């Protein structure tokens, strides 16, 4: 993978990471008073996909995500100020006037549709939107929401109709704290294949994700991307200190340039949050 591209992806991931670190901090300090679902640890999925789809393919897809969606919103170009405002309870400035919170982010600007809070509903709804509009559509789901019966039904229909749709399973192995092996003995990429669509399992390294670019939106495809959630299911806290951190790993591989980016976002995003706090 070209280093320039990898840096570009790192840049998006860095924005997401520093956003989440601040959200963590202000949630801990109780300055964020609503439940938040932090995507730290998983940001390379959205950062890679957004870079490939928006910047390389020049495609602006319809986006359907679920509760853990800060990184999706930020990577695909959602305005950071509006999300900070939403989380801090400045409802006038938020995209959804306080209705969306952390879990139901909506942005007309980037074609990101809100989530209703029932995990997995974004899959059939995204399929319907794609079927009707015929526009390239990307649908994110967790490894747990993938198990919803209506998700499976919708995947089957999308495959039957050969839609230009990309299903991304952000597989952090957890449904809140229940591990995948407790819940099922099957894999989502196998399910996709049995529905006669392309289905692959991979990890969340940008160099892995980009390998599938050639199939994006040509036909239905499902990527089950194994990843790691750094923080609690909801709110500020850590389940473990042993979690593999893709962000630190990429920073190490990319060296000085990445360190510079990391430093830059560390300071600019902190400032942005502080500015919003002053307005409260």
């Amino acid at each position, binding site marked *: 993978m070209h280093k320039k591209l990898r840096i570009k992806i790192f840049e998006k991931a860095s924005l997401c990471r520093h956003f989440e670190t601040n959200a963590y901090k202000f949630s801990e300090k109780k300055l964020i008073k609503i439940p938040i679902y932090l995507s730290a640890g998983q940001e390379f999925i959205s950062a890679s996909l957004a870079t490939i789809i928006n910047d390389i393919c020049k495609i602006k897809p319809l986006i359907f995500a679920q509760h853990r969606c800060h990184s999706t919103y930020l990577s695909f170009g959602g305005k950071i100020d509006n999300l900070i405002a939403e989380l801090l309870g400045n409802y006038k400035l938020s995209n959804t006037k306080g*209705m969306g919170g952390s879990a*139901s982010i909506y942005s007309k600007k980037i074609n990101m*549709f809100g989530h209703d809070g029932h995990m997995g509903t974004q899959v059939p709804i995204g399929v319907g939107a794609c*079927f009707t509009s015929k526009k390239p559509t990307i649908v994110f789901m967790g490894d747990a929401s993938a198990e919803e019966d209506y998700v499976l039904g919708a995947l089957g*229909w999308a495959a039957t109709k050969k839609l230009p749709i990309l299903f991304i399973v952000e597989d952090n192995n957890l449904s809140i704290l229940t591990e995948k092996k407790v819940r099922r003995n099957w894999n989502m990429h196998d399910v996709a294949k049995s529905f006669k669509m392309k289905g692959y399992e991979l990890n969340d390294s940008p160099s892995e994700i980009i390998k599938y670019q050639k199939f994006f939106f040509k036909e239905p495809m499902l990527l089950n991307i194994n990843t790691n959630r750094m923080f609690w299911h909801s709110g500020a806290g850590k389940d473990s200190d042993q979690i593999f951190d893709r962000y630190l790993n990429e920073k190490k591989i990319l060296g000085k340039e990445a360190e510079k980016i990391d430093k830059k976002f560390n300071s600019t995003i902190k400032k942005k949050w502080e500015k919003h706090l002053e307005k409260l």
Partner: protein
Amino acid sequence: MGKTLRETIKEIIKNHLKNKKGKVFGQCLTAVGWVGGTLPELYEKDGMIELSMADVASGGIVTGSALMNEKPIYVIRYQGFNWYNAPMIVNYAAKSKEIWNAPCPVFVRGIGMEGGIGPVAGSSHHSLYYRMPGLKIVSPMTPNEYKKIYNSFMKDDEVYYVSEHRGSFNNKIELKNDIKGKKDFVIIAISITRFEAIKAKELLEKKGFKIGIINILWIKPFKISKASLKCIINSKFGGIILDDDYVDGISNSIANKLNHLTNKKIFTMGLSNKSAGFHKKVDNLPPDTKQIVKKVISIIKN
């Protein structure tokens, strides 16, 4: 003679597909029967979309279509299936405008019928939608009512639950309120019970009672004219709401509203509080003429 309600719906759908470039979604639409003859013989290329048998997912697929401003019509062949079809309609389509300012209008055709068909296929289930915000519930039983509702939907950007009944598909007649003069008692009827209400009124009037009739087309928001309210206020004994769903839902809620608005006692009559069986003896049917007459007389006499 004018057209039947069946022909009217078929024409509206044909126009929706051909001239409005809309879509109609549902299960088993293009098989024998064409949903009681209410669909034109058109196929996927014309916008008549066969869904799979994944009922819950399909409600979501239609919701997604509505998000794209296509104003889809969603056919639910028996209202009881709504337990599986409604989740994303009520939790997403109906809320999308309020939460994200992203209208998601779906025209849900929920079709009722009954008589020896058991607890799922039988009766209307419009109360299932009733408690949720962001949607409208109507029950047109005549050609003009149906046209009005469709036109209203096309100008609107909200979800409509259209509670239809196969028993009305042959109807050509516009049903009118009777609210003139001082009444002893007023029958306020919803859906298929509107036809029984007319027969009950005739029988009761033969027995010397003056009976008013109010037809309810708009269930949510509940619409009733001032003149109709006045008719209830001026009545001697109040009124009764008839429904072909269970009374714990729409009828009891409307009765409560009318009690407050009119200061008169409003009774309710709908399905019995039990599951319908298939045999005549254990079926659960909407109130018929005889039962309505008996109930009204007992109210008046007590």
